[in-house]
């Protein structure tokens, strides 16, 4: 259950949900929050910002360490989640409902380049060794 089948993923541990209107909702995976530990600070990108694929666009910090979040595809930020900014621990409680930001992809077809759950499972397993 820690890698939902209906989401897309990146090797850098972001999850991506394709919404009905074509926007993408983005967060960090259960595995990522487990590696980082208790979250204490989250800074999503400002709405309106244009992101290149792979650009550092958000910061998540646990008591232990700071980690960057990367844009899974190119696009424009259309929303940032103020609730996770106010309650970073919500990412520990449920990483897949505590989204960080939403983007409107520059090219909707780019989503097909993301990992599916099985491929992401392999990424997680390869890191365990």
């Amino acid at each position, binding site marked *: 259950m820690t890698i939902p089948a209906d989401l897309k993923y990146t090797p850098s541990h972001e999850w991506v949900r394709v919404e009905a209107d074509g926007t993408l909702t983005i967060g960090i995976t259960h595995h990522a929050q487990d590696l980082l*530990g*208790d979250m*204490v*600070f989250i*800074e999503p990108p400002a709405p309106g910002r244009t992101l290149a694929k792979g650009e550092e666009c958000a*910061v998540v*910090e646990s*008591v*232990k360490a*700071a980690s960057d979040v990367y844009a899974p595809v190119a696009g424009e930020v259309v929303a940032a989640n103020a609730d996770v900014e106010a309650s970073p*621990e919500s990412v*520990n409680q449920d990483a897949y409902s505590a989204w960080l930001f939403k983007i409107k992809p520059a090219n909707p077809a780019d989503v097909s380049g993301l990992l599916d759950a099985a491929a992401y499972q392999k990424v997680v397993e390869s890191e365990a060794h």
Partner: protein
Amino acid sequence: MLRHTPLNALHRELGAKMVDFGGWDMPLHYGSQIGEHHTVRSGCGLFDVSHMLSLDLRGANVRPFLRRLVANNVDKLQVCGKALYSCMLNEAGGVIDDLILYFMDESWFRLVVNAGTADKDLAWMETCNADWGMGLTLTPRRDLAMIAIQGPDATRVLNEALPGVDSLTASLKPFNAAAMGEMFIARTGYTGEDGFEATVLAKSAPFFWKALMEAGGKPIGLGARDTLRLEAGMNLYGQDMDETTSPLESGLAWTVDLKTERDFVGRAALEKSEVTRQLAGLVLLDKGVLRSHQTVLTKHGAGEITSGTFSPTMQQSIALARIPLGIAPGEEVEVEIRDKKLRAKVVKYPFVRNGKVLI
């Protein structure tokens, strides 16, 4: 190959997330680092600190040896079991390690040194022992384990876990220790709370740990140990001071005895040195997290954060930073975090003691 303490299997049974800590396979946390932090501030936490090394120094010259070896004055120790915190300096006045010395008797002192520096410390002490013709015997006690019992409920937990210890805990003052059978119990710690560090035979450690848990003690990992010690304003070797920094610029002047005529290693260098920096506390006023090595901008020039974290007790970020002299508590400075300059206030530390925020 990572080194294991006698409690390694127990940590794994308890579901700890294990990490490589200076070559030791140690528990980072058992679920929630922040939860464990709060447990120590409000109840009783148990820490496996068996990676630290107890070192027995024996011989007729042990006191003269230590007078010369460490920066604090070992002559403050005249009563059996009394403890002293000190730095051990190199000739340049840099800190080889910080350690606790216990006076056992006139021919026996016990030193407790950091895990990561234990081999270096032992080699240095053996060199001094030979060069100064002291004829001491230095015995690393890897046959011992150490468990820290910390928090406002620590005395009750220890009393319940160890029948007969209550008369000892009732009279044991802070920074004193006493032996009970094979056990050595000190009223010391690294959390800013009341508590004990109990040294036991390695083979007895798992049984003792379980008894402490049955009495209500909760296992605490090294993650919370770091946030607790930072809130308590206690230095961490390798971060807040090392061989290249002076104790006088590390908030440790109180541990360096320059009042007596005693000649100790590093004294001449310290007396010649010009102190231009101080270790100060910082509280972040903007949102973010202070981390070691971030640059601090002050009106007298730049400094650097040596330890930074998010304080679970204060719910904001705090740090120790080495900054220029002349910056006083209450003043604002800036910290460079990624592409931003965030505001921080200079404060006198400790930040938290005995569960209470002091800032």
